[in-house]
């Protein structure tokens, strides 16, 4: 038993040899390496599976023995300062290890098919395996510096993978944005680490907890400093987990390939912030201010994410905002001290969201031959619809994921979300109201995504036949987009091609004009592929989907508190976990324990489920049955056209949609303030540098030059000029003497 722990360091290092050989192969002998291609995928999956078996073994031992194992090596030798590297195996680590390896393997299998036609297939595998390594390293870290080390490395992997298709300018700016935003968080994390090092003199977690717990209550003067440092640490988690002020990078990060979005930007890396807070919870728990701040940020994020997800057109972006919202739930749970609920939601959300992202990847994959490979089109939900006929398996899995995220009972997320909701009600009604309302919103927007994608009819073809694409586009656009670049581009197109004014296309039924426009719009694909329908994706991609579906169906059982037989092993683990780490912290432990068999649980469940069903229902009314919806909408449109006075409800709806579509205007604000501000600053310093500092130097040089010239002129050696000056001065002298 001990010896397994001794070799636990091998887990993060396992995928490394393949990465190195692939990387060097790609760099030095690209052609030979690229010829091997899919052969390379096999060892990386294999090694990750070994890591998974290993971590399973570890966590079984954790369940049985529940001991914490730590091992350290010294990293730098210095007399009064030593950094150590080591690993720490405890229940939290083992849970994260299992999560990362399982999702990682499934995503690797999936991307073998998804990326198979891509130029950078091997590069993708190098990056993703490297990500796995660093993420595994992150969760096994035993001190803060090590966390920071891997924290940055996963950030870099995310940067590389978002910018994977580097020829796309959008991807290029998205990856830079992600890195810089994360760097703001790292800035806080580093300062927080340094601050805690200064306060406690140690970087080990366990020393830190001991010292912090003994120290903080006694010492009043330093509590401000401690709070500040904790706040800075939290800033790191905010950036990595896409919480409110620093969430802007996550939706843009969807420019990366879809498996990446599933693995990094839904399941694992964005959960690193939650992991960090969970790891440091014994420290944070003694700082009530920070705890309430965390829960506040979590609440803002979960609400904001849900509202922003309402009107996205891009399927991946909507999912990204939903991820943000769910991370907000976890943050809230941590903030109110219900550690177990947060981790539980982390696990269930990871599997459900990975399922959803992989499903959306499958949808995108099947849409690409129809509409083209631009993410503007292939991920656009406006062009989808009715896919349920063509991709039934994907549809089923996607539906399960959706329902799970909405919180429909037998599925995974229901259990965890319900726990968070009830805990937040107990903590403060304010948070409870927002969280429950957002649960309804979640159901609405998730079901909206599902309905727009799979329900109704395929709008790409529909527009080709009946040429009311603009109609549908526009009517969706009322729901999905406000006046934006999409419309503007159409506007430009329409004015160029057929001379239709912008306003005429608002009237949905001008067949001739719109047909012209659509013809021009989709010539390259429309002409060729008029009769192509989406196909179900290959088995390699469906297999991970199905496995994830199983996880989504059954993972919820690990956290169920009923003792009527459903007793997985990991329920023990979770309870052990909470017993070990948070005996005094978990304020709601008794409550949730008491609610195990009680009536309370049922009422909570019923209320949250009814909220979710209400959300589903509204979504169905709005988006559900396609024809009625469009008729209804056209009707509404015409009403809108005819009545200058819109009803109040419409006004509100429009406001909400434009708010949501424009991402809450937060990005605009940041662009205005930070980007332009930094540019101004750069210009200013550049000017200062060139004008003032260099100017002084040049001025000195110039002055020297001038003086030299002057002296040269004066001492030019012309006798006549000497005589002239001499006579001048003599005459002046004579003139002034009398």
């Amino acid at each position, binding site marked *: 038993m001990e010896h397994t722990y001794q070799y636990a360091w091998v887990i993060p290092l396992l995928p490394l040899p393949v990465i190195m050989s692939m990387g060097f192969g790609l760099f030095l002998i690209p052609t030979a390496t690229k010829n091997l291609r899919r052969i390379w995928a096999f060892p990386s999956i294999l090694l990750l599976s070994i890591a998974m078996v290993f971590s399973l073994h570890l966590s079984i031992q954790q369940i049985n023995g529940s001991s914490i194992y730590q091992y350290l090596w010294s990293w730098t030798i210095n007399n009064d*300062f030593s950094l150590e590297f080591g690993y720490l195996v405890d229940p939290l680590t083992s849970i994260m290890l299992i999560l990362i390896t399982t999702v990682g393997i499934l995503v690797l299998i999936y991307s073998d098919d998804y990326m198979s036609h891509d130029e950078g297939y091997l590069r993708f595998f190098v990056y993703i395996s490297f990500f796995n390594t660093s993420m595994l390293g992150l969760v096994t870290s035993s001190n803060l510096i090590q966390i920071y080390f891997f924290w940055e490395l996963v950030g870099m992997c995310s940067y590389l993978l978002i910018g994977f298709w580097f020829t796309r300018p959008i991807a290029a700016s998205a990856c830079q944005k992600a890195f810089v935003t994360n760097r703001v968080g790292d800035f806080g994390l580093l300062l927080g680490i340094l601050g805690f090092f200064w306060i406690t003199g140690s970087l080990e977690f366990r020393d830190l907890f001991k010292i912090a717990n003994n120290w903080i209550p006694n010492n009043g003067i330093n509590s401000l400093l401690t709070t500040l440092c904790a706040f800075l640490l939290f800033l790191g988690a905010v950036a990595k987990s896409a919480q409110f002020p620093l969430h802007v990078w996550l939706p843009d990060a969807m420019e990366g390939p879809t498996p990446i979005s599933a693995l990094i930007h839904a399941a694992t890396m964005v959960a690193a912030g939650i992991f960090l807070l969970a790891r440091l919870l014994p420290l944070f728990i003694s700082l009530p201010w920070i705890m309430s701040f965390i829960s506040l940020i979590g609440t803002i994020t979960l609400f904001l994410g849900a509202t922003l997800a309402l009107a996205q057109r891009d399927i991946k972006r909507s999912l990204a905002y939903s991820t943000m919202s769910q991370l907000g739930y976890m943050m809230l749970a941590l903030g109110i001290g219900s550690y177990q609920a947060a981790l539980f939601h982390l696990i269930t959300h990871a599997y459900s969201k990975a399922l959803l992202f992989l499903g959306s990847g499958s949808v995108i994959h099947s849409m690409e031959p129809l509409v083209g490979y631009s993410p503007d089109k292939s991920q656009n939900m406006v062009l989808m619809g009715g896919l349920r006929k063509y991709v039934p398996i994907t549809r089923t899995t996607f539906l399960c994921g959706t329902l799970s995220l909405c919180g429909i009972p037998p599925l995974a997320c229901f259990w965890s979300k319900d726990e968070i909701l009830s805990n937040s009600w107990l903590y403060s009604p304010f948070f409870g109201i927002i969280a429950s309302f957002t649960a309804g919103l979640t159901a609405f927007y998730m079901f909206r995504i599902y309905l727009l994608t799979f329900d109704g009819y395929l709008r790409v073809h529909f527009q080709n036949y009946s040429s009311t694409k603009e109609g549908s586009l526009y009517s969706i656009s009322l729901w999905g987009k406000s006046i934006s670049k999409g419309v503007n581009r159409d506007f430009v197109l329409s004015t160029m091609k057929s001379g239709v004014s912008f306003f005429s296309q608002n009237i949905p039924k001008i067949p001739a004009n719109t047909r012209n426009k659509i013809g021009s719009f989709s010539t390259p694909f429309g002409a060729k592929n008029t009769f192509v329908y989406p196909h179900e994706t290959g088995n390699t991609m469906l297999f991970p989907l199905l496995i994830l579906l199983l996880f989504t169906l059954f993972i919820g059982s690990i956290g169920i508190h009923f003792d009527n037989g459903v007793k997985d092993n990991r329920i023990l683990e979770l309870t052990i976990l909470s017993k070990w780490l948070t005996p005094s912290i978990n304020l709601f432990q008794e409550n949730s324990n008491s609610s195990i068999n009680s009536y309370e649980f049922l009422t909570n469940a019923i209320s949250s489920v009814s909220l979710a069903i209400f959300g589903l229902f509204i979504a169905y009314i709005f988006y559900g049955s396609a024809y009625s919806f469009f008729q209804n909408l056209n009707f509404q449109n015409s009403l809108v056209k005819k009545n200058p006075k819109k009803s109040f409800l419409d006004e509100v709806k429009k406001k909400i949609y434009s708010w949501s579509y424009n991402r809450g205007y937060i990005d605009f604000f940041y662009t205005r303030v930070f980007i332009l501000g930094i540019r101004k600053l750069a210009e200013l310093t550049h000017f200062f540098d060139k004008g003032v500092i260099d100017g002084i130097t040049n001025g000195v040089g110039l002055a020297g030059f001038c003086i030299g010239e002057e002296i040269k002129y004066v001492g030019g050696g012309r006798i006549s000029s000497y005589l002239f000056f001499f006579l001048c001065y003599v005459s002046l002298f004579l003139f002034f003497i009398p």
Partner: protein
Amino acid sequence: MSYFPWLTILVVLPIFAGSLIFFLPHKGNKIVRWYTIAICLLEFLLMTYAFCYHFQLEDPLIQLKEDSKWIDVFDFHWRLGIDPLSLGSILLTGFITTLATLAAWPVTRNSQLFYFLMLAMYSGQIGLFSSRDLLLFFIMWELELIPVYLLLSMWGGKRRLYSATKFILYTAGGSIFFLIGVLGMGLYGSNEPGLDLERLINQSYPTTWEILLYFGFLIAYAVKLPIIPLHTWLPYTHGEAHYSTCMLLAGILLKMGAYGLIRVNMELLPHAHYLFSPWLVIIGAVQIIYAASTSLGQRNFKKRIAYSSVSHMGFIIIGIGSITNIGLNGAILQILSHGFIGATLFFLAGTACDRMRLVYLEELGGISIPMPKIFTMFSSFSMASLALPGMSGFVAELVVFFGLITSPKFMLMPKMLITFVMAIGMILTPIYLLSMLRQMFYGYKLFHVPNKNFVDSGPRELFLLICIFLPVIGIGIYPDLVLSLSVDRVEVLLSNYYTK
């Protein structure tokens, strides 16, 4: 111990062998190239051999001493000797110079003189790092200038004369103060002039005098390092010089300033350093921010990298100014780490620029498709430069941070403030580096480039890049490689401060 004059041989060999270049037959560049590479390698191997077998790492004192009279009148000795502090710098010099000669292969115009100058620089640098006499130190310092000036003014870009003049005037201006400092230190007190560094350590001065001396030296180093506001020669020089020269400049020449700051100012003038150190730290912090934000405003990407290296020098200054064991170790680590990273970034920028013949960022874009290898290495070294963990820059900066935090000299609030400002630099660095990467490599293919058929890096360039990449990773993963060199020496050096 044998009394073989290892250091004299190391100092004299390159310049002597370099002067033989002119006697080689005029049969194209090939012979000259190979000859120079062979000399550089020989020197490097000799160095490694000497240090392996005749140098005790555990001993923090001066070793391999040599002392012979040169000019009797004012007691000027040819006095050499190294300690672990200079060992690292000498090895870095050997490494970078050898690779820079390899990088200079495309130079064909007047190649004999070019290679001679490079070898002369090699001598000067090793002489500087190993001299134990203040006047010898000064002479070597000046000897350095002439090759750089010539390299710059003969093989530079369009505005080479302007930048060469600027360089020489700046440095010569700094050298005046240096000379004044040397003379002031040598002539003080005793009847006969004494310039032995060993003896000068124990000498003490009145406070005013010490501060004046310190200031004089500081100006000379501030020009070389550079410290703001004396940095404006650097962007011009780096913008115009051939990239092999840039490698030498960024890799070694800038480090001479830091070395001098440690060797002379810290070691010989501890009181003044103790007084000046808060200012050094403040200047360092300002420099990090200032240079980073100036870098962001540059259109020319060579200048952008040049400012980035100015920004990184701020960490060295802070490390030196923190007067702690850790901080000083961090500064030394940063010297080495920036020597590798800065040199390579200039090399990469130079090679990319030679291929495209464009230097303005807004004209560039999408060159990652034709040149994936340069793209890979450029990204890797940018990451190294922005202190990504696992690479040497991260360890250096982290150690400097810890040094500042643990420094007993500063109060809590200033310490927090300075740390905060330094950390803001950590946000600015990726902004300028990544936006440079984005503008150069990402995006669509270029269509308006004068030179359409790009070639990716060949084996020579790849070899060079990998050679530098390995130590960067090595130090990043196991920093003890370098720290073990300097730890003991630094402790001895700082014992002066803690006893007072």
